[in-house]
């Protein structure tokens, strides 16, 4: 049987590929000359972090609005975060350092922030592999436990980017604050206070989105 994506999945997927499209278009316009690897490194990093934060926003939104469609957004944006993180790592190791062990090994040995980033990428792999609905159902309670790793991954990435930024670190601090707020929204008493009464409009939209 042919598997059909729901509307919300299609929309999120489309949004996920837009940054790649923008980058490729700008690249053909030579907008990243004379040092495209630098721009690709920074662009993929920022995009990965943004999708990770979007993914972390979905559970609170589902809880507050009572819309299950957010769980589909969570899955797709989580996969998008993984894709951009892979692109980021590929750019660094292959495009920038040309897989040269003489350059790469000392880098990873001397710079803890690179290890933080690499650890985050490795930990994202089991999450990406278990993102499908069928495997989720099969894993049951273990699935939740595996996917709680995302909180650690978030911390690793925030630390990685904090140390990667030169000079003024306020943008890194801003992301840390956003992450903190997203974590607070998960606290039971905050979650329950913010929860709105089931609304018919929300339900109608939700039905349309998951169709």
């Amino acid at each position: 049987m042919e598997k059909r994506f729901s509307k919300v999945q299609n929309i999120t997927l489309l949004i996920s590929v837009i940054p790649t499209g923008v980058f490729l278009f700008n690249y053909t316009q030579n907008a990243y000359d004379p040092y495209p690897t630098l721009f690709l490194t920074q662009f993929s990093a920022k995009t990965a972090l943004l999708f990770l934060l979007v993914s972390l926003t979905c559970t609170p939104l589902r809880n507050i609005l009572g819309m299950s469609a957010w769980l589909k957004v969570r899955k797709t944006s989580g996969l998008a975060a993984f894709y951009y993180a892979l692109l980021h790592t590929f750019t660094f190791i292959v495009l920038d350092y040309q897989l040269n062990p003489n350059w790469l090994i000392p880098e990873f040995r001397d710079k803890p922030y690179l290890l933080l980033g690499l650890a985050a990428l490795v930990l994202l792999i089991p999450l990406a592999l278990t993102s499908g609905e069928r495997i989720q159902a099969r894993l049951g309670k273990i699935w939740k436990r595996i996917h709680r790793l995302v909180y650690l991954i978030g911390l690793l990435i925030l630390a990685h980017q904090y140390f990667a930024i030169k000079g003024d670190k306020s943008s890194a601090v801003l992301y840390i604050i956003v992450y903190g707020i997203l974590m607070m929204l998960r606290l039971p008493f905050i979650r329950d206070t913010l929860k709105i009464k089931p609304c018919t409009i929300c339900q109608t939209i939700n039905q349309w989105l998951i169709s």
Partner: protein
Amino acid sequence: MIEKKKPDVITPQELYQSRRKFLKTSLTYSSAAALLAACQPIAPTPTPQTGTSSALSDELGDLTTSEEDIAGFTNYYEFSSSKKQPTELAADFVTQPWTVQIGGLVKKPQEILVTDLKQQFNMIDRIYRMRCVEAWSMVIPWSGILLKDLLDAVQPTSAAKYIRFEGTFDPDQMPGQNHSSYPWPYVEGLRLDEATHDLTLLATGIYGKDLTSQNGAPIRLVVPWKYGFKSIKAIKKIDLVEEMPTSFWMALSSQEYGFYANVNPNVPHPRWSQASEQRIGESGRRDTLLFNGYDEVADLYTGMDLSVNF
């Protein structure tokens, strides 16, 4: 043992200058051609003269970076922390008239117009590698004066041990200086023997033209064996001092940026590779050379632990 050579011995000054004349002539020629073309709309548009940049190379045989890339990709936090924005933001930066004040521990303090400075001192051309602490590099054909010549004129007293440079502070024209998280104005420093070294320049031009604003017009320091951030731009004040000055980046993060900041592949930085670099305009990385390939400065640091004095 590496043979010690001054860059201007390897490529004689006359040759530089004849190249410079060629550059100037060819530019005049191309603008004349463009004018002619404008008069005859049917004639094909002449191809812009881009070949001039590939005619120059440093003493290691590496070609100079294109004028477009030198002017289009900069680190100039006074304008912006982006690499490209300074080019637009500095477009209207006023650099004339511009005086530089030279004082502190000197016998003959001076306040001199950059235009006079260019008349008063011997102008020279030098092709230097510029290695940024962020692990990218360029080869730049500078013109300017030897800092040593200026110091000879102001006569430092025996108490002077260091030289302190201060960049201009002008937040109205330099939007980056409105960011109070940085210790403006930009300050840099050299030890006196580094300042009087034959490689150290006060540059006023690139490719035989006046410096563009984003490259540090009207006058900047060039110390090719140190990371680019030492080569302070748009200098307003030069003081001879007794104590080691605290530079802009030292004030911001002293664990990351030292006073010496000599290019050294063996002393890692917590963020960027110091062992390899991306030469702008090339496709792959290359190894970074100790002292950026200027071995003749090694004598300045005899007996010093370079990983402590980084």
